[in-house]
């Protein structure tokens, strides 16, 4: 637990993501556990879709297929959070959340944390690479997808 705390961007104790009771997003969360980013792509009309839904919003084919994509994108927007909205963040200090757009997957967007100095300057449009973060000692275990600037690699 304690080693995990040092290795994760935010402290343990935040809400743990799980799939809905109907299993809609289960392939996404299972993918992150295996270092794979899975997004829906309709097998009928090839439309990308994220977050997942039971139907393709374009052609109404049910159960859109899950496709692995490269976790690369660009910053669409960002925020630096100062106010701790959860007890475990009370002594933590500021942190960065980014909204990342993935051009090679229909420009779907996903939220994650931007690794590195929380006070760094951020440019909208900057290229970022995904970083998988595993919370194996959590109950239940889960994985997240963070981002870091491609220029920082």
């Amino acid at each position: 637990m304690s080693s995990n705390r040092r290795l994760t961007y935010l402290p343990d104790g935040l809400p743990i993501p799980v799939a809905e009771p109907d299993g809609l997003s289960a392939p996404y969360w299972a993918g992150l556990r295996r270092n794979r980013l899975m997004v829906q792509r309709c097998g009928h009309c090839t439309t990308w879709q994220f977050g997942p839904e039971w139907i393709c919003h374009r052609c109404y084919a049910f159960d859109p297929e899950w496709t692995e994509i490269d976790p690369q994108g660009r910053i669409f927007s960002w925020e630096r959070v100062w106010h701790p909205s959860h007890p475990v963040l009370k002594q933590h200090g500021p942190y960065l959340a980014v909204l990342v757009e993935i051009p090679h997957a229909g420009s779907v967007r996903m939220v994650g944390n931007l690794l590195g100095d929380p006070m760094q300057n951020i440019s909208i449009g900057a290229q970022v690479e995904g970083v998988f973060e595993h919370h194996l000692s959590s109950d239940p275990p889960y994985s997240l997808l963070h981002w870091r600037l491609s220029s920082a690699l």
Partner: protein
Amino acid sequence: MNAAARAERTLRGRVAVVGIGETDYYRHGASPDPEFKLALKAILAACGDAGIDPRDIDGFASYSEERSEASRLAAALGTRRLRAATMQWGGGGGGCCAAVANAAASIIAGLADCVVVFRSLAQGQYGRFGQATGIDTISGEKAYLMPYGVLAPPQRFAMRVRRYMHEHGVKQEALRAIALASYHHAQSNPRAVMYGKPLDESKYDASRWIAEPFHLYDCCMENDGAAALVLVPAERAKEFKNTPVYVLGAAVGSGYRTGAIPHNSPRYASASFDTVAPDLYAMAGLGPSDVGVVQCYENFTGGVVMALAEHGFFKPEEANEFLKFENLMAPSGRLPLNTSGGNLAECYMHGFELVLEAVRQVRGVSTSQAKRNDVAMVIGGPMVTPVSNLLLGSEATL
């Protein structure tokens, strides 16, 4: 009304607000009364203002998962005949005008004759929007956000506002002007929680960040209280003691796939009024230049910038020029805004205090009365979905 007018599908001129009322407004958790008692007090105050026997209410309408439920109210108040009980889907304040629209539609359709629209909140009793607690599992939209520390509303909306500022060159000073206008007007309003607590530019600038680009004063308060109004058919409007205030139009909803989670709305940098604002103007037969005063829900000041632009008061690129403090002040600014103090400084009654203030403006009894007050607008819950809006007017505007 002739047959053609009767066949026209509109709310315009068909219903009137004849009573408004609210409890004292409290800081969150400070109400001495439980939530349901607050609801009853506000409803009785609105009935008193109208001069109506509360037993004659035959419908209740609310929004945002209101807990003071219609049948319990009807039992408590001895309602003779309950005929309408409508609840608008969606959280936050997106439904504050939709609840009025739904009540109006019930009346016009002949389902009810006297509907109370209200909101009651005791956040000490039930927790509040702004604070996440405990360790738990989470699924659906929040699962894509909360593990990354995107927990509370300021964090959920800061990225949207940041993107809008980036796309249109909107500066922090535009957000600041909105906060200053609300606090300025609250200094004339004894009901306001921030009455006697003025805000100036330096205090705003020095205030802590909540989530950039939101300072403390860009974020709404958390409060306890209740507010209510009484709606009747226009034919009955003059049976009551106050000057009637007519519904000129209302609209509800959002555009194409606004609800795509997480943060996947095609028009992300938007307050969700791209389709809703044109609907409102079309129903009312009015445009932005006809509106004398606006109450716009400030969950966050940045949402107000977007919402005002989407209602055509200025182009996004003109926001810095338009959103100056002097333009937003009653009585004679270009567009007096949030003249009671609004969510930032009067009370965060999830926007229902804004609806009551619009009624006061048209009646001519606001504590910060606008000179042009024949048409008053309310904008509910920018950036959520569904959102809603409302135009109210005097008899002369019918």
